[in-house]
């Protein structure tokens, strides 16, 4: 199976064969793999160097590699093909979601507003702190699903920002 992988922002193509045979960007890699925690942690030994790889979180896709945290996502070709054109992953569409449950203390924008990247969109009170959630990208607030005073769950969609044309 072929995977499109992004590691720390760099694209890598991985072909995973049987018996721990991997092609990385077309080059055969002698990787010996020991799974140390099921589905969560592996020791990947490459040319004598052991690398402990731990899945920190699936979403966002973060790995711990030798004690270093890195964003690393892998999508297999079939999934990639199926998801192309899906509106959720459409280019130019950015979702702002609540990173944790909390109380919306303040909503700083209205639907239709233009916002700069990093502009405050809402203030979420959680863990006894007020946290300003900021626009992931410059654009237009296409949808606003947040109301002041509302309690929101972790992961709840708060706003959709689309690239201004």
């Amino acid at each position, binding site marked *: 199976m072929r995977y499109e*992988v992004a*590691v*720390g*922002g*760099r694209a*890598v193509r*991985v072909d*995973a064969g049987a018996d*721990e045979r*991997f092609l*990385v960007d077309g080059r055969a*890699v002698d*990787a010996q*793999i*020991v*799974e*140390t*925690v*099921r*589905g*969560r*942690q*592996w020791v*990947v030994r*490459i*040319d004598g*160097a052991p*690398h402990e*790889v*731990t*899945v*920190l*979180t*699936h979403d966002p*896709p*973060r*790995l*711990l*590699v*030798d*004690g*270093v*945290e*890195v964003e*690393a996502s*892998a*999508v*297999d070709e079939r999934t990639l093909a199926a998801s192309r054109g899906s509106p959720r992953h459409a280019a130019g569409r950015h979702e702002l979601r609540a*990173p*944790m*449950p909390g109380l919306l203390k303040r909503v700083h924008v209205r639907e239709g507003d233009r916002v700069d990247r990093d502009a405050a969109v809402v203030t979420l009170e*959680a*863990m*006894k*702190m*007020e*946290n*300003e*959630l900021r626009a992931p990208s410059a654009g237009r607030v296409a949808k606003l699903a947040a109301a002041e005073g509302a309690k929101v769950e*972790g992961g709840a969609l708060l706003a959709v920002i689309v690239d201004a044309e």
Partner: protein
Amino acid sequence: MLRRILVANRGEIALRVIRTCRDLGIATVAVYSDADRDALHVRAADEAYPIGPAPARDSYLSIPKLLAVAATARCDAVHPGYGFLSESAAFARAVADAGLTFVGPPAEVQAALGEKTRARRMARDAGVPVAEGTLEPLRDLDEARAAAARVGYPVMLKASAGGGGKGMRAVRSAAELEAAWRMAAGEASGAFGVPDLFLERLVEHARHVEVQLVADAHGGVVSLGERDCSVQRRHQKLVEETPGPSVDDALRERLGDAAVRIARAARYRNAGTAEFLVAPDGTFSFLEVNTRLQVEHPVTEAVTGLDLVALQLRVAAGERLPLAQADVACRGAAIELRVTAEDPSAGFVPAGGRVALLREPSGPGIRVDGALYEGMRVPTEYDPLLMKIVVWGRDRAEALSRARRAVRETIVAGLPTSLPFHAHALVEPDFVAGRYDTGYVDAHWPPPPLELDEGARTAAAIGAVLSRRRPAAAGRDGAAGGAWALAAREEALR
């Protein structure tokens, strides 16, 4: 000595207090909200009682519930930990009125020092420099405008009843004042029940340096060296160390002397901390006294060899301090890393989650104060502190090396943590050189993207692929694969 203590807190500090009580042979009674019924502090205590639903105001902040447990469990004392009711004069008074010993300063001391402008007046009267600003709470926004104009921007707006970095805003110009006033007052109201604010001149490039104090009821006061706590985000500390890299012996003596003078003026009792801002020119000004044990007390324990909780319990029981100022001997250097449930790549926004995998660091020079276990759900209702990694070394360089090693060994999977920040700071040249102030995090975070070396990047790419596979297929990877699954299957054999 005290016999049976209600630990009116949760998380790592509840476990920390229980540990020392166990060392001293004092029985412990834990309390827990619905979110904490399987918490480690519950299991470590001799008894444990439920005190209501997860929100703190319905559980850990409920004075009647806590006193009811203390009565039921026949406690003779209450340790408040930090946060929650630890700096509440009302709680200290209610505990005393119930005939129990409060392990902390008495209510009148808390009241005097808890009102920050009163504490400022007290320090000034004791001959300790205080930052220019207001010595009474501000009546309204107009008065704030006038005061800020007089002191000169930038200023800090602070909650009069504040502490822990809540209800605090830096204001760089008159235009920002109104918004900052509203947010700070709102936070102060929510956190302390009092919206009162005051302001003081914001000292640019200042370091936050604090002095640990312990005082007994017989006039004994000792200062136990300083801690530099300048590495903060949102006015909350991320890293603390002792000795302070910018503090020389002369400054140390002046800070210690100032702290003791304030303690004497306030008729202080028990453990407390005098906080100061130290300007780049070495002048310092008093900030406030934290009338409780600090989160970062273990760095002081690491260099002095003292157990601060044990000292708290002894002086609360009426004993004299077992040491005089001349007996305080510090050895080496210590650094504390606060590992929090926050995502440093997203502005340190806090987030809960389930601890899917946990590996705490160990070995020479490492102490971990935490209360995590694998499978634990980290509640989002409370402070995001997960664990404190406390590192000691013969000198700062050794402590730094060990801290880097400790961070590399630590794994907390399942939720975002501050560890990437710590990993960065510990190799960042300014931090390594000890050149930092309260603006450190803003100036040095986020760092430029990390470049993994080729082997690690290849391993990461393969790991990313492995993490997408169904767990069912994982057993194929070899005999040692699927350790947990195998363990479950083999249990019946043993």
